[in-house]
């Protein structure tokens, strides 16, 4: 199952300062996702073999949630039931919640379709679908860097929030209760017809395990 992307990718030349090895050149794609701009269109396959196009969800709020089933920060939000509560609450309000796995085969968090469905069942998750992105194309398109990395797209297809799930970067579940949840705040603002007061934050978590440079 792969994600196919309709977009143009620009490559950067990047000088890497890695102290142990000699400096090398790394290609980096500019993510097309920008706040207050149309969210990049995509067409991606889920763990049931169905295709999801962002444009098909016009009129609905869409949440993208990058995950990795072995990451302790993801564990913080799933182990506590926090992520599942958000999923249930907002899908219950008509939000389309898409969990995305961009881990490359052989890396932590990689799941095939069956494993993805088993994970959903085991952890009592309630996303609309789980998108399988082993090539990392969808992840790079959105610039996902850490799991969990969250994106909220309004019903007009505009990206109105991207970044951390909440404002306490830690792996400690006891922080959830007194943290401000940015995803809930963004969705609630959209529904109230208000401006999203915090449109972008730095995501915290484990690095997304992308496929290495080709």
């Amino acid at each position, binding site marked *: 199952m792969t994600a196919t992307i309709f977009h143009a990718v620009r490559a950067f030349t990047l000088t890497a300062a890695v102290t142990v090895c000699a400096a090398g050149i790394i290609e980096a794609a500019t993510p097309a996702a920008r706040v207050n701009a149309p969210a990049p269109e995509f067409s991606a396959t889920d763990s049931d073999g169905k295709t999801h196009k962002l444009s098909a969800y016009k009129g609905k709020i869409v949440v993208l949630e990058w995950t990795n089933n072995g990451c302790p920060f993801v564990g913080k939000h799933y182990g506590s039931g926090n992520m599942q509560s958000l999923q249930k609450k907002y899908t219950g309000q008509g939000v389309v919640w898409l969990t995305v796995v961009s881990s490359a085969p052989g890396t932590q968090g990689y799941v095939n379709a069956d494993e993805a469905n088993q994970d959903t069942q085991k952890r009592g998750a309630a996303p609309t679908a789980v998108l399988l992105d082993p090539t990392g194309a969808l992840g*790079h398109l959105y610039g996902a860097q850490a799991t969990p990395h969250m994106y909220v797209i309004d019903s007009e297809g505009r990206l109105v929030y991207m970044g951390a799930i909440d404002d306490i970067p830690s792996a400690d579940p006891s922080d959830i209760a007194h943290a401000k949840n940015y995803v809930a705040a963004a969705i609630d603002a959209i529904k109230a017809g208000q401006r999203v007061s915090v449109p972008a934050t730095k995501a915290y978590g484990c690095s997304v395990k992308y496929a290495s440079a080709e």
Partner: protein
Amino acid sequence: MRVHHPSETLRAAALLLGLLVASVLRAGDPPDPQDLVRARLIAETSALQRGKTGWLAIHLTMKPGWHTYWRNPGDAGLATSIKWTLPQGVTAGSILWPTPEKFVTRTIVAFGYPDEVALLTAVKMPATFPFDNVAIGATVSWLACEKVCIPGSATLAIALPVAEALAPADPRNAKVFAQARRRIPQPAPFKATFDMDAEQIRIRIPSTALRDVASSQVMFYPFDNSMIEHAAPQRVVMRQREIELILPRSPAANERIQTLDGLLIVGHSGGHSPRALDISASRQTLEQSDERTR
């Protein structure tokens, strides 16, 4: 002559099988955080002096291949944190972070420490301290990453005699403290300014600040992880009166900041150790910036 009972053979076989199964299970278990990072709380001197500052350090030793994080962990990860338990009147400062290394994986940057790091902290004793000994506790929390990340923590304690006079260095720890101090960035002996727009953050320093340094040899590591795109190229422009670092701004950057703090890394590639200068750039409006370069 010893007779071998069949039940003994069975028991031996069961034991061997049990050990085999246990070792296979152990191989699949996630690594024990304590195996990945060893933490110790050490003191620079053999006693602490009333009314004076002494130095402690959390010394972390990482298993080969694993690293812990700097105050700005980069695009993922988590900075090491220390929570001190101090007696009445004793205060601890914030961590003196050694210059980190920069790890780049395609589009994701990490700032951290492989092998080992000593996180120095100043401890100030009150002028009046009625006891002969001081007990200090520290709970250190870290994230150790290699291909995967494992959070860990350690609760450490140290008890030191309290002296009136300056105590001698503890020879066991001298090497660790000396190495750590060499790795701590120096405050920059010049003023830096910055301005910011929707796309870029531009830092300016006097052209005399860095002599005989190629533009490709200068980089900026911010203390705040939300300000710049860490993986994007940084452009350095050498002008007659100023050196300008042009940094791609992160969408998460706070537009209202008036100060931008971080490290100017000079000579980051080329074999020898880079120099790190601690700068605190103050904000200028674009008009002020234009004036200065005219």
